[in-house]
């Protein structure tokens, strides 16, 4: 599904990623963990095509195609979804209207017919139940005045509606209390399937109690320094990221 090869990237001229190799097969859920400033968000932004980032080396294949050659909206339409760490507010633009425009942009790309207002509402209501989203949030402006938890639910709702092939969750757990975390994780788990891959970016292990990953990667200074199973996350939780740094220094190589 996704194949990242020797990816180097800078943000506003500063090199951040120094050679990432990562492959996620269809149906797999991978977690990328790492301390602040390790390059986690840069990785998700580069994959989604956010302006301001420059890929200096390497390539990314998505379903065998060169992902980096596509505009952000083309990536989204072909099935790359980024759940934002900080979803933006857009005053005056109805959430309902926005989601419908988004769903229809993706449907059109897939050669499917656009949903009309009634059909959309029906589909939307169903998905809203999954993330326990109150109906009035649909009639408000995008994320405007939403609580932290509501914003994240809104992200997951969009993911449910768009049914992407690759879901990238950028610190979706940040700022969530345990109940909201459960709801959000429930939404994500509802999407797990053999045709869909996920890249979960997180600072803490907590989220991975609810979304159990197939692989865990540790990102440090723009490189993946260790890869393991779900138990690696637990180990990080108990020993901290400092442990890896020491281990790296002692062995003189990165795992």
């Amino acid at each position, binding site marked *: 599904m996704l194949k990242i090869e020797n990816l180097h990237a800078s943000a506003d001229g500063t090199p951040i990623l120094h050679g990432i190799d990562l492959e996620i097969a269809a149906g797999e859920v991978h977690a990328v963990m790492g301390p602040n400033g390790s390059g986690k968000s840069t990785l998700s932004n580069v994959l*989604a*095509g*956010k*302006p*301001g980032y420059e890929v200096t080396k390497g390539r990314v294949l998505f379903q065998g195609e060169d992902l980096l050659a596509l*505009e*952000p*909206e083309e*990536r*989204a*339409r072909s099935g790359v*979804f*980024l759940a*934002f760490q900080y*979803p*933006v507010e*857009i*005053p*005056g*633009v109805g959430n309902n209207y*926005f989601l419908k*425009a*988004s769903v229809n*942009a*993706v449907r059109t*790309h897939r050669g499917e017919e656009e949903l009309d207002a009634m059909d959309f509402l029906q589909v939307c209501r169903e998905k809203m139940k999954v993330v326990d989203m109150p109906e009035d949030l649909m009639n408000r*402006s995008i994320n405007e005045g939403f609580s932290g938890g509501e914003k994240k639910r809104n992200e997951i709702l*969009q993911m449910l509606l*768009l049914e992407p092939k690759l879901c990238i969750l950028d610190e979706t757990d940040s700022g969530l209390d345990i109940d909201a975390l459960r709801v959000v994780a429930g939404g994500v788990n509802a999407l797990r399937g053999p045709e869909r891959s996920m890249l979960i970016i997180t600072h803490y292990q907590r989220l991975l109690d609810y979304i159990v990953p197939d692989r865990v990667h540790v990102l440090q200074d723009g490189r993946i320094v260790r890869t393991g199973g779900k138990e690696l996350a637990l180990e990080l939780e108990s020993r901290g990221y400092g442990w890896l740094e020491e281990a790296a220094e002692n062995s003189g190589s990165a795992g």
Partner: protein
Amino acid sequence: MASTDSKIQEFVDREYEHGFVTDIEAESIEPGLDESVVRWISAKKGEPQWLLDWRLKAFRQWQDMVEPTWALVEYPKIDYQSITYFSSPKSKKDGPKSLDEVDPELLEAYEKLGIPLKEREALAGVAVDAVFDSVSVATTFKAKLYELGIIFCSFSEAVKEHPELIQKYLGSVVPTTDNYFAALNSAVFSDGSFVYIPKGVRCPMELSTYFRINAANTGQFERTLIVADEGAYVSYLEGCTAPMRDENQLHAAVVELVAMDDARIKYSTVQNWYPGDKNGKGGIYNFVTKRGNCKGRNSHISWTQVETGSAITWKYPSCILSGDNSIGEFYSVALTNNYQQADTGTKMIHLGKNTRSTIISKGISAGHGQNTYRGQVKIQKGADNARNFSQCDSLLMGDRCGAHTVPYIEVNNPSAQMEHEATTSKIGEDQLFYCRQRGISEEDAISMIVNGFCKEVLRELPMEFAVEAQNLLGVSLEGSVG
């Protein structure tokens, strides 16, 4: 994106370079302005003596006035002696014969803006006088209006047919001495529109919807006068979303509204004059004086404007709330891109008791555009229980543009209630990226964000106008981010 940018830019440039509006074989006088020119214009139009005297008085006053410099706009000094003050359209025979001869990119622009098919020909300057059916449409509706006693005609016609009304109301809201540009307009105005809605009549259609094409050539010194008698209602639309070409760089229009007891006037404008090229060369100077007098009790005047064109906009549609319980409203979207400058706002003068005013202003600046909201709310001594609500929001795109808010508030009555809110925000890369990450194109995203920002104003526009205005905002901003 780069290719879209250049394509749009190309289209904007080309459209005006080629000039598809019919070349008017003008019967004009030499450039320059003195008393003989004013006399010539008046004679040419066959005006009565009183109107000539009125024009001459205005001209003499104008000569003693100085051009105002307080607005936050910069432009080279205007040489008033190099301007031609009268040209009458003669024929359209040099225009394209059909839409097939018109630049396809211009047609694409009309398509994008959702201009009705019938109107596209007229806007493109196609010589269709004989066959164009808006003429018959116009005639049909005129007859219907006439049945209701509504007068809707050109200003010149009104001077001939209804001199008593013109004499009574002309200059009653905007006196000749009001300001430099109003005085100039009073001296040399070419033509314009006159509307009179008799007592208790509700005008059954949006005025000028069916006529706006014909009004496209009203010239640079336009004069509009609308009188709504007791209990009357009228919604008047001015302008057009389609880009319009004009040879005259200086526009100085005057609009006067008079609302009697229980009358309501809704005046909507979409202004899209040539804004100049991307380097700020050329473009219309739009110095307009618009004012309404809520003369009667419970009268109500609303101004709604969407200003996207012109190199310079200097415009403050205002309300004098003379009648008790009268209401004044001002809803405005002003957009400046490239090197456009807009200094616009309103004045709400509260004289009567229990008068209310609402001001919603949305300024959008992109490129090197400069956008100023300038407004005055004045509560006079006798205006007990007056209320005002003002909201001035600015949206910035990029980091080379500017937004300025200059509200003046003067309260001379302690019972007044005033509220003022102002925000400035930036259309962020983040907002755009968020939309694009959801599969929405950059073009659609900009349009969506800007229309969201302007929502409170756009919903005041009559339906069909609102849709065109929404498209217009999107088109005017294409390529201004990223």
